[in-house]
C-alpha cells in the first residue's frame, strides 16, 4: 500500500516537472520568435499606423503597400538579382574548389603536405581586417570596384580553409578500395576525384552549401567596401544603406520591416528544408579536429 503511494507521488512529481519544463521551453520559444512576428506584423501596416505611439502590434487594416513600395518605388528586385548572382556563383564555386583542394590533402602524399595544411589552418585564425585594405587597393588596381568580381573570384581558390578542412575530414573516412578499383581501370586523378569521391561527399557538401548560402546572402560588409555605385547594391547592403539613410522617419518603419521579411524568407525556408542536415551535419563533421 505504502509502496504504491510512493510510486504515485513519484509519478505526479515527474508529470509536474515535465509540465514546468514544457512551459519554460514554450516561453523561451515565444521570446525567441517574437521578433519575427513583430517584424512580420509591422511590415503589413500602413505608414499612418506604423508611426503611432504607443507602438501597435496588430495591423489594422492588413496592407501590402510596404511591399509594393519596395518593388516599385525602390529597386529591391534589382538588389535581389545582384545577391542571387553572387550566391549562385559561390554555391557552385566554393564546394567545387574546396573539395578539389581537400581531395589533394586527403588522398595523396606529396612534399610539403604538412606545411601547406598547417598554413591553411593558420589562415583560419587570421582576422579579415588585416588584409581588407590591401585587398581593396588590389581590386581597385584590377578595376574590379563596383562589380561583383571581388565577391566571387577569390572563392575559386580553395573557397575558405574551414570548408577545405571539413571536406578533408569527410574524405578521409571514405574507404580506399573504391578509388583503387578505378585506379586499376586506368582512371586518372581528375576523373577519380570528380566521378568517384565527389559524389560520395554529398552530405558534407550539402551542409557547406547551406552555410555558404547564408554567409553570402547576409554579408553586408564586403559589398559596403566594393559596391558604391548606385544600382550595384546587393540585398543585405541595400537594407543596411536604406535603414540608415532612406527609411529613417518613423512612418517608414513598415518599409524596413518588409525589406527584412523579404530578406529573411529565403534563409528561413532553406533552413526548414535542410534543418536536419544543418543540425546533424554539424554534429558529424565539425568536431573531429
Amino acid at each position, binding site marked *: 500500500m505504502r509502496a504504491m503511494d510512493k510510486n504515485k507521488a513519484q509519478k505526479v512529481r515527474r508529470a509536474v516537472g515535465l509540465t514546468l519544463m514544457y512551459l519554460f521551453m514554450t516561453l523561451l520559444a515565444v521570446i525567441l520568435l517574437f521578433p519575427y512576428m*513583430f*517584424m512580420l506584423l509591422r511590415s503589413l501596416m500602413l505608414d499612418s499606423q506604423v508611426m503611432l505611439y504607443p507602438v501597435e502590434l496588430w495591423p489594422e487594416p492588413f496592407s501590402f503597400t510596404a511591399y509594393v513600395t519596395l518593388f516599385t518605388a525602390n529597386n529591391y528586385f534589382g538588389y535581389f538579382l545582384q545577391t542571387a548572382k553572387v550566391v549562385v556563383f559561390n554555391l557552385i564555386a566554393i564546394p567545387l574548389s574546396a573539395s578539389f583542394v581537400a581531395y589533394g590533402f586527403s588522398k595523396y602524399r606529396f612534399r*610539403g603536405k604538412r606545411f601547406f595544411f598547417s598554413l591553411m589552418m593558420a589562415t583560419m585564425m*587570421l*582576422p*579579415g581586417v588585416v588584409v581588407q585594405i590591401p585587398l581593396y587597393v*588590389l581590386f581597385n588596381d584590377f578595376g574590379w570596384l563596383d562589380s561583383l568580381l571581388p565577391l566571387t573570384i577569390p572563392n575559386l581558390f580553395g573557397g575558405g580553409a574551414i570548408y577545405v578542412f571539413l571536406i578533408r575530414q569527410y574524405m578521409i573516412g571514405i574507404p580506399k578500395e573504391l578509388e583503387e578499383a578505378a585506379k586499376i581501370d586506368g582512371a586518372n586523378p581528375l576523373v577519380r576525384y570528380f566521378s568517384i569521391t565527389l559524389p560520395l561527399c554529398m552530405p558534407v557538401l550539402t551542409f557547406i552549401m547551406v552555410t555558404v548560402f547564408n554567409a553570402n546572402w547576409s554579408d553586408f560588409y564586403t559589398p559596403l567596401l566594393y559596391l558604391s555605385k548606385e544600382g550595384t547594391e546587393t540585398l543585405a547592403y541595400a537594407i543596411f544603406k536604406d*535603414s540608415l539613410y532612406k527609411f529613417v522617419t518613423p512612418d517608414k518603419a513598415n518599409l*524596413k520591416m518588409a525589406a527584412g521579411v523579404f530578406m529573411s524568407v529565403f534563409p528561413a525556408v532553406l533552413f526548414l528544408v535542410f534543418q536536419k542536415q544543418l543540425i546533424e551535419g554539424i554534429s*558529424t563533421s565539425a568536431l573531429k579536429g
Partner: protein
Amino acid sequence: MRIKTDKGVSGGGKVNAFLAFLKKEWRMSWAGWMFISPLVIGIAVFTAYPMVQSLIYSFYNYDGGRLFEFNGIANFRYMFGLDFEEVAKVFGNTFLYGIISVPLNLCLSYLLAVLVNQKIHAVKAFRVFYYLPVVIPGVVSGVIWSQIMDPSSQGVLNLFLGKFGIPPSGFFATAPTALASAIVMNLWGLGGGMVLWLAALKNIPAGLYEAARIDGAGVFRRFFFITVPLSTPMIFYNLVTGIIGAMQTNNTMVFASDGGRGPKDSLYFIAVKIYNEAFIAKDFGYASALAWVLFIVIAVLTAVTFLTSKWVYTGDE
C-alpha cells in the same frame, strides 16, 4: 686524360642523379600539388601578399590614391599619442563586449543545448524554434532590434517592461545602456552555439552515464564529472572562435547612431574605427597600423588560450 674523363663522368652522374631525384619527386608529388595549387595561389595572392602590404602601409602616409610617402612610426605615435583616448575607448569597448558576451553566450547556449538534448516529446520542434533566429541575416536582426528597443517610453520593449514596473530604458540611445543592449541583442543568436553543443553532447558515450548512475552519482555529479570534462574540446573551440569573432564585431554599424559609434562612443568598436579611418577618412596608412595592432592583440589572446588549454580533454589520457 683518364682522370679528366673520370671527372666528367662523375659530374654527369651528379646531374643525372639530381634529375632522377627531381623526376622521382615529381612522380610522387605531382597529383597532390595539382590539387592544392588553387589554395596555394589563393593564400599567396589573397592572404600573404595583402598581409605584407598592410604591414608596409602602416609605416606610410597613404590615402589610397597618389599620396604614398614613408613616415616611419608616425602612425603608431599618433595611435599612442594624440589619438590614444579614442583608441583606448574602442579597445576598451571591444574587450568589455567580448569578456561579457563570449562567456555569457557559451554558458546560456550550453544550457539551451542541455534542454533540447532531453529525450522528450516534440523536442526537435523546439530545436528548430531556437535555431531559427540564427538564420536571420545580421542586418535584418539589427533593424528589428533597434525597433524593438525603441528608446521611447512608448516603444514595444519599454511598454512590456513597464508592465512589471521596470522604468523605460534608452537602450541603444543612451551611453550607459547601449553596450548592455548590444549584448542582450546578441543573445538572440544563442541557437548557433546550441547546435555546436548538441554535437559535443552526442559524442559523449552513453555508457559513461550508465556506469556513473550505477555508482550512485546524481544529476549534478554526472554533469560536472562527465558532461563538462568531455565537452572541453567544444568549450575550447567556442572560446577561440568566440574571441576572434568578438574582437572583430562590426554589426554595430547597423544599429548604432553616428555611423556605428553609438551615444558618446559607447558602441564604438575597433573594427568599425578601422573601417572609418580607411574608407571614410581615407587614411589607409593609419587604418593599416590599427589593423596590425588588432591582429597582434588577437594573436596574443589566441596564443594565451592555447597555452592555457591544459584543461582540455584530448582523449589520450
